[in-house]
């Protein structure tokens, strides 16, 4: 990779870190509500992965999705506006933090039902196979998402039909408060054995290691060798969500993982090889903070979604007499509250 690309990886990780810290502030200021799952510590996973994909490869992830959207190039303002629940957000404030989306960039969204998005990802891979467009699907999930039925159903089928998909576990070793050994009986990588699926273990705190692993398995998929499984070992610095007091993990463990911080580690490596200077690092920090300032500003000024948009896109507009149906479906008591909501 050339210097510029390497520096760009660094910059993207810093962007995610700064964006997440600011999101936490905005949550404290009650600009953001509901569940807010931050990506601090896991930045190298999304950034390394996206750097190895083509622009038209598909990405499907869980609710811990800010880093993925930002790494894929989604405008930070649109992401922050979504967290604020504003019209300028990636879903106009409908999905919120857990359901960012950017279909133009083949980012098919964050999903909040554990394991629920795995079959969808296999389905997208089927579409790639159907259209013979050489696309590869990356499906990211947490370690706690490997014990539910859809994990089995989706992986088993992907192998059976040789679908071009990469199942990537962002193994931060906790599912909310439940430690890995409490929810799983076998080492993560062994979970691929039952599907005879090609599997690798990857250092998720090393952006280049993630990038290289994705290159290898994406290649396999593009060449018709079918699905792969990656156990990407990482760690989240903060609680599960902003609602989590994080009393269950011991501080020493967290401190230890912070020693392996993907951002500082990568900065040091670049400095060693003279691929970046302290001055550039400072400049990037400033540049990124400016981007996030602008994002917050955009979100603050983005209006609430209009009330009369509520029924839009429950269904395609093409539906015959959905108006009639709508008027039957729609409760009388709120007629006043909605200007002229249509289905």
């Amino acid at each position, binding site marked *: 990779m050339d210097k510029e690309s390497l520096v760009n990886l660094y910059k993207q990780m810093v962007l995610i870190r700064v964006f997440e810290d600011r999101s936490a502030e905005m949550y404290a200021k009650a600009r953001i509500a509901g569940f807010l799952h931050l990506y601090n510590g896991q930045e190298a996973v999304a950034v390394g992965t996206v750097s190895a994909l083509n622009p038209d490869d598909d990405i499907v992830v869980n609710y811990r999705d800010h880093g993925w959207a930002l790494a894929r190039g989604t405008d930070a303002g649109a992401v922050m506006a979504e967290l604020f629940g504003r019209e300028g957000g990636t*879903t106009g404030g409908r999905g919120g933090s857990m359901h960012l989306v950017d279909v133009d960039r083949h980012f*098919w969204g964050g999903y909040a039902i554990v394991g629920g998005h795995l*079959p969808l990802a296999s389905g997208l891979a089927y579409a790639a196979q159907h259209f013979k467009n050489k696309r590869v699907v990356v499906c990211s999930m947490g370690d706690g998402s490997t014990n539910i039925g859809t994990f089995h159903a989706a992986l088993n089928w992907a192998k059976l039909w040789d679908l071009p998909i990469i199942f990537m576990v962002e193994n931060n070793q906790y599912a909310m408060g439940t430690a890995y050994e409490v929810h799983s009986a076998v080492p993560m990588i062994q979970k691929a054995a039952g599907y005879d699926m090609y599997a690798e273990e990857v250092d998720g705190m090393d952006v280049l290691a993630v990038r290289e692993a994705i290159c290898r398995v994406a290649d396999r998929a593009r060449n018709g060798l079918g699905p792969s499984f990656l156990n990407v070992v990482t760690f989240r610095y903060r609680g599960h969500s902003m609602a989590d007091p994080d009393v269950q993990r011991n501080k020493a463990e967290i401190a230890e993982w912070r020693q392996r911080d993907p951002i500082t580690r990568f900065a040091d490596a670049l400095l060693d090889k003279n691929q970046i200077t302290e001055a550039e690092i400072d400049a990037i920090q400033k540049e990124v903070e400016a981007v996030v300032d602008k994002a917050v500003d955009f979100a603050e000024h983005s209006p609430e979604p209009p009330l009369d948009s509520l029924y839009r896109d429950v269904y395609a507009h093409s539906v015959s007499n959905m108006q009639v149906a709508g008027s039957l479906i729609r409760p009388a008591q709120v007629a006043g509250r909605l200007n002229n909501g249509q289905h």
Partner: protein
Amino acid sequence: MAEITYREALKRALREEMQRDPNVVIWGEDIVAYAGGGAYGVTVGLAKEFPGRVRDTPIAEEAIIGIGVGAAMGGVRPVCEIMTVNFTLVAWDQIVNHAAKQRHMFNGHIKVPMVIRTPNGHGRTASTHSQNFDAWFAHIPGLKVVAPSTPYDAKGLLKTSIRDDDPVVFLEHLQLYGTKGEVPDGEYLIPLGESDYKRRGKDVTLVTWGRMAVESGKAAKTLEGEGIDVEIVDLRTLRPLDLSLALESIKKTNRAVVVEEGWRTAGLGAEIAASLQEQAFNDLDAPIARVAGLEVPMPYAKNLERATLPFADDVAAAVRAMMQKQY
């Protein structure tokens, strides 16, 4: 215009739409190898005619539907067959939290043009294999739900469902697969969300769908002999629910019986009765009655199954009771 079976009408709809659009694919359990094409024979021959586009799958309904949702997101138009409606429960989360939510939750950026074909019905198959979840499907914003009662409706509605850009649950019926009716040879479509008069009459309105529309027709013949003239409204689509004909009919008859196959409590019949009494309060000379299945897990024994399911005689009895009683 030839008489064909409901089964054949469905197959023709599938064939025509597969010929029309190369992105229409079908998958499900035992739809290729088993008995030449499907547990109930709807897909017989299609695998040969459309190589690679009709596939047997593992037994994993959550994947059949979930992978269908993903494929639809990616531009394929899957028609997923679930062997019987009972097995949709295994995929319930995929239907409710995924298929139905995508378009609205993602603000129109994602669409899910898929059809889930599955039969209601019974046949001495006991409690886990003789259920009816019409009311549950009809409760879900984002889903469209269709339940044809005739070969004509079956073909026209299935073609429309396959072309529809929303997820459609298409409820067929084991007891109707073999029934015959006239179906035009040429292409035709029936819009979703439009109910249909299956019989005109002046004394009492029956609001129904699926197998019970057929049973209601039988009851109407019996009642005709007794001087009771029944009007039958077949909803055809369960979501969106079109009650306009039912309301029009009640203005004339002032009496209505809702006829459904499933369990009564919190069944779809309850919604229909509740909406009708709300919108036709002053037209009603009698409370809206409901004919429904008994609220027990379906027993295997012949006499118990017969007692649990509603048939034409139950419909006739309910209508007689309504016509006799003074309010």
